């Protein structure tokens, strides 16, 4: 065995250039594979994180019917005490009670249908990142009917800071009502649909206008927890506390998240399989070449007494050595690259207009699954193993006499 290892290892370096090319190709393949998977995972998590920090939070408590029909009248009573109850759980870091109404914002120039959030800015800033996205003015600081909207929407409506905007919406009785608000802040969330479709006012202001003055109601209570990976556990733990409301995790609120998380394993498998297919043909080709150009030598080895098992093993070992040598190179390379990009991120601002539509940040951080290295290592090893079988079989099919007389 030691002898075979020695011969196999030295055989690799006989055609140095070819082996280096193959090693380079495998390493590069490993690098590209892991990097790409980590990058696309980073992109998806960026999307998910943005959506969590922008609006949906980790947990959402709503009136069961509000889920189906976004009607203002399906609200939660005693919202503050429900929020406090949620906040009491040690995993819950922040809670915000929101009044959510559908309505219209109008200016002298025009009008648009929007979703109106009535929020408490202090509580909301613990849950969403909108407070950090204010580009002008402030985040609903106390004033007379302040309103916060995106700069984009303000531009469309021809509004500026301190301009007046009129909100029209249903009150608790189902009657249309309106109120005049003054713009005290402009934000830019980075997501076009959200920016164009959401305005924010103080919760007490909208309650007063809808006839719920002094009442403690909210359509939505959003919470952020410490460990998003255990959101299901926290949800199951909290749900019994709210028998009359529906508590959902972000994965349930945004089904594409759940879809992605359940499909990521399959997707990786498919991409890895495609990679393996490409790799296996490369390996078969290389090793077949290595066998065919050594026909005489293999004939000689079998003539002087090297049995088929050993010849087979020798070719297998050569192939595995190629894979095993390329593996640490490729994985080392990708670890270094990922370290760098995990720090700096990948700047996609040239595509930023398109990405805004989906709510993705301009800078994406690759996010490797820890198990990816093992997965790819196993895949490469397996591929080398499978790719070696045919050339090795070819080698042992040689008849010594014929091989020796081959020109």
């Amino acid at each position, binding site marked *: 065995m030691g*002898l075979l290892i*020695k*011969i196999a290892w*030295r*055989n690799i370096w*006989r055609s140095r250039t070819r082996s280096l090319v193959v090693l380079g190709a495998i390493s590069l393949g490993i690098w590209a594979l892991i990097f790409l998977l980590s990058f696309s995972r980073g992109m998806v998590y960026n999307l998910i994180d943005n959506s969590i920090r922008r609006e949906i939070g980790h947990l959402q408590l709503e009136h069961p019917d509000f889920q189906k029909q976004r009607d203002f009248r399906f609200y939660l009573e005693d919202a503050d005490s429900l929020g406090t109850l949620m906040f009491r759980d040690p995993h819950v870091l922040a809670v915000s009670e929101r009044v959510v109404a559908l309505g219209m914002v109008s200016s002298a120039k025009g009008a648009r249908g929007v979703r109106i959030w009535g929020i408490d800015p202090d509580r909301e800033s613990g849950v969403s990142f909108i407070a950090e996205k204010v580009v002008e003015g402030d985040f609903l600081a106390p004033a007379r009917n302040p309103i916060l909207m995106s700069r984009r929407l303000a531009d469309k409506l021809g509004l500026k800071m301190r301009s007046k905007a009129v909100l029209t919406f249903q009150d608790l009785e189902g009657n249309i009502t309106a109120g005049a608000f003054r713009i005290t802040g402009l934000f830019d969330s980075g997501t076009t649909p959200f920016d164009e479709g959401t305005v924010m006012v103080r919760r007490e202001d909208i309650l007063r206008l809808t006839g719920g003055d002094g009442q403690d109601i909210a359509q939505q209570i959003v919470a952020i927890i410490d460990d998003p990976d255990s959101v299901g556990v926290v949800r199951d733990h909290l749900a019994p506390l709210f028998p009359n409301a529906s508590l959902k995790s972000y994965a349930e609120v945004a089904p594409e998240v759940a879809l992605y998380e359940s499909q990521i394993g399959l997707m990786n498998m498919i991409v890895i399989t495609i990679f393996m297919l490409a790799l296996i043909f490369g390996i078969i080709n290389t090793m077949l070449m290595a066998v065919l150009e050594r026909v*005489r*030598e293999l004939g*000689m*080895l*079998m*003539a*002087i*007494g*090297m*049995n*088929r098992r*050993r010849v087979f093993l020798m070719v297998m070992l050569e192939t595995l050595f190629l894979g095993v040598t390329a593996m640490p190179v490729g994985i080392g390379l990708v670890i270094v690259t990922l370290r760098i990009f995990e720090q700096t991120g990948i700047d996609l601002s040239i595509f930023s207009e398109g990405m805004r539509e989906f709510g993705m940040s301009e800078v994406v951080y690759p996010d490797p699954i820890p198990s990816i290295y093992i997965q790819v290592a196993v895949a490469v090893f397996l591929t080398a193993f499978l790719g070696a079988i045919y050339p090795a079989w070819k080698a042992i099919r040689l008849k*010594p*006499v014929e091989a*020796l007389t081959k020109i």
Partner: protein
Amino acid sequence: MAVILTRDLYKTYNPDTIPVHALNGVSLSIEEGEFTAIVGPSGSGKTTLLNILGGLDSPTSGYVEVGGTDISQLSENELIDFRKNHIGFVFQSYNLIPVLTAYENVEFVMLLQGRPEKERKERTEALLAAVGLADHMDRRPSQLSGGQQQRVAVARALAPRPSFILADEPTANLDSHTSANLLDIMGKLNHEEKVTFIFSTHDSRVIERAHRVVTVEDGVIISDEGMKR
């Protein structure tokens, strides 16, 4: 006792298409310790005969006994083992494993046989010294001349203590001086190690050194002479 015994060997290549009758009834007996040349014109069947004696090829009909074993009865895998333990080969070229040094090449078959380390070392060093390559043990074949490579091949063939050594035109790629030198070494080892040598050749100066000359033509033995020296 005969190391090799053949009776009525026939070999026909391509029996179904254009048959070539390479051997047409060869009966030959080789005794232990012989130093025998198989000679004959090109295409006379020398290589065919040696391949059959070495268990690399099988006759179309006839009987081959090597060291008391009827090798026509052995399977392909048993033949490989048989060759490993009983037959040493020296080919015209491509004798050595290019990635191994002279030392490792000589040691190779002994390793396959599973001989102990100490024995391998002693024998490898002794044989390389006997073929005059004690100073070249760590060289790879590509760093040796053609004659030196053939000497390593002779040492490699002898190392596993085979019953006999088959050499098909071992000097074909060597100049006459180097050929003579190789034959001298083979003759010396035949004498010292008491090992049987059977080699084929075209070269009259090589033939001169044989103790017995078997002449083949058109697949039959036309003369078989012992040379007294």
